[in-house]
């Protein structure tokens, strides 16, 4: 299939919220007026200088941005090829990139006069970020989390409680991230007046995929200017992990029209993409409609959604943001996958070589970098999005390594 190359990869979505055939607004009628309101409010905020200023101020003084672009010299030496830089979003307040987006959405919720914030969470990072910003602004916060995830992410559950959030364990379906998202949507249709749904990734109905991407794009813009400062030019390769795809879109989007920059997204291959236990929707799925948009999904022959599997709870989602589906079909971004085992090795290597305990999510991106970096020349500039720290994962890793803590 030949896909017509657009003039720019950065102009989507169109007015219907589509990126090519992907995206859209597949929601119940009850929600339709709400997402139209949101779209309007966001369009106004986006061009409002005071909104921008407020966000920049909080990014700087509350989150700690800009996050450093750090040259990982020992990793570089060890892999013996490309020059590896880490974009250190794991140093953000609350330990991941998630807060970039949450701040934007909560400021918007305040502009819209909403007083109750709901969110879904898998690993708990988005839940923690949402609970944090709600605490800061004195907003009521309700977080939906699959029962299975509540069990395996206890420290984050307690963190959210300390921050004053109410946690609702979701037992419907099989109790993971996808079910938490269903339950959040059910809450939203029930509480239409006062509630703002703060989605944690570049998924959901339009305008969420574009809005979350815009809020996360700060990662890519900073990288662009930091790399210019460090090396005087653009990077050659970008690499990021993909759950729903928000940290990846954030890094990639400002570079999409820089044709010389190679861009790679890394999905969670779980126990292998040829097994039933993985979360690689682009590699192992096909287009379908879920949670308000059309995108690649893990599904059976009858269009029933399958459960994803990954050692990383944050990547454990059977879908992916619609813009990624489009970028894959347009051929602009390359998508790869790595297994649980490879991610674990990368996790350990990062700890030992750089003194950085990565989250299991970016450990996936690193695992892919470990495969490609050795074959690249020494002047090849590679940026890996270190989008989260691994404190939340030490129990999972200990168990996988057979260690008792």
């Amino acid at each position, binding site marked *: 299939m030949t896909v017509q190359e657009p003039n720019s990869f950065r102009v989507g979505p169109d007015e*219907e919220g589509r990126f090519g055939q992907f995206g*859209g*607004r*597949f*929601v*119940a*009628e*009850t*929600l*339709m*007026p*709400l997402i139209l309101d949101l779209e309007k409010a966001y369009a106004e905020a986006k061009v409002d200088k005071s909104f921008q200023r407020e966000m920049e101020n909080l990014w700087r003084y509350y989150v700690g941005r800009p996050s450093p672009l750090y040259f990982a010299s020992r990793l570089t030496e060890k892999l013996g090829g490309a020059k590896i830089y880490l974009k250190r979003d794991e140093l953000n307040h609350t330990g991941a990139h998630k807060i970039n987006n949450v701040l934007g959405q909560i400021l918007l919720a305040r502009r819209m006069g909403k007083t109750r914030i709901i969110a879904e969470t898998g690993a708990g990072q988005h839940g923690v970020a949402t609970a944090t910003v709600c605490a800061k602004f004195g907003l009521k916060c309700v977080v939906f989390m699959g029962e299975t995830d509540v069990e395996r992410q206890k420290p984050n559950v307690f963190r959210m409680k300390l921050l004053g959030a109410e946690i609702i364990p979701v037992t*419907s*379906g099989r109790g993971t991230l*996808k*079910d938490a998202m*269903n339950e959040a*949507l*059910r809450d939203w*249709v*029930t*509480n*239409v007046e006062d509630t703002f749904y703060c989605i944690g990734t570049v998924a959901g109905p339009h305008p969420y995929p574009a809005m979350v991407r815009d809020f996360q794009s700060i990662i890519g813009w900073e990288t662009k200017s930091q790399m210019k400062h460090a090396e005087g030019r653009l990077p050659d390769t970008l690499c990021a992990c993909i759950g729903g795809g928000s940290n990846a879109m954030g890094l990639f989007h400002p570079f999409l029209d820089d044709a010389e920059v190679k861009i790679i997204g890394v999905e969670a291959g779980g126990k292998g993409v040829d097994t039933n236990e993985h979360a690689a929707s682009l590699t192992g799925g096909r287009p*379908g*409609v*879920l*949670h*308000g948009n*059309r995108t690649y*999904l893990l*599904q059976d*022959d*009858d*269009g*029933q*959604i399958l459960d994803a599997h990954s050692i990383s709870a944050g990547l454990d989602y059977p879908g992916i943001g619609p813009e990624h589906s489009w970028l894959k079909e347009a051929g602009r971004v390359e998508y790869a996958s790595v297994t649980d085992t490879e991610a674990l090795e990368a996790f350990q290597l990062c700890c030992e070589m750089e003194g950085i305990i990565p989250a299991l999510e970016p450990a996936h991106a690193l695992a892919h970098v470990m495969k490609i970096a050795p074959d690249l020349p020494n002047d090849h500039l590679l940026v890996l999005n270190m989008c989260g720290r691994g404190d939340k994962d030490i129990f999972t890793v200990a168990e996988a390594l057979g260690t008792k803590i």
Partner: protein
Amino acid sequence: MSRIQQRFEKLKDENRAAFVSFVMGGDPNPTASLKLLKSLPAAGVDVIEIGMPFTDPMADGPAIQLAGQRALSSGQTMAKTLKLVTDFRKDDAETPIVLMGYYNPIFSYGVDAFLKAANDAGVDGLIVVDLPPEEDAELCIPAREAGLDFIRLATPTTDDKRLEKVLTNTSGFVYYVSVNGITGVKSAEADEIDSAVARIKAKTDLPVVVGFGVKTPEQAAAIAIKADGVVVGSAIVDMIAGKLDKKGGAKVGLVKSVSTFAKSLADAVHTARGA
């Protein structure tokens, strides 16, 4: 004239509202599900909605979620749901059948193939929860071209301006979702429903049918005075859930209990306007 239109015209002549019942296709298993469907017209059900099960029913409450899970674990597929309609049609050519569900199983089946199979099976209309007017090109317009009614939901959040948009490509009837929320949880007050029905009727000649949260014959009767029809889903589905053995199989008497309950609702709806 379509079966749906015929049915509503007949009811209008008789000055009574339609009783519309929802059951999940394949719940609790294919055999019991067919038997149950076949018992409904005699119980007084005027229009049958059959749910197409989906793993992620984002507008449904626990009762219908569980019904979908029961159907899926007994092996229900889209092809089997269509077969259920074919089998039902073998001895009922009149009762309108509306398939209700979510878009992905249809999209996965292929829109054109699905519309053809639905027509061949004897389906009359479709309700697809996650296809608002903004996505009409996906299924609504092709369905209308294929001769199937596309029944749309109007909700309390649908204001007057939007109502026009909602009504534009709607056919068969308008389904007024009486509460903001998911199926089977909250119920609305009868006077709120009446004013919403009047608001919709001012803008369309289509019958207006009310659903979500209607559980008892009394509630159904109160709505049936003004509305053209009343839908009961979760309460019927709950009845099915209560008649299952430990392994999820149908207990003796399941069909009887459900059709008796359906009859009590149908009677209440049919006599509401005082014969």
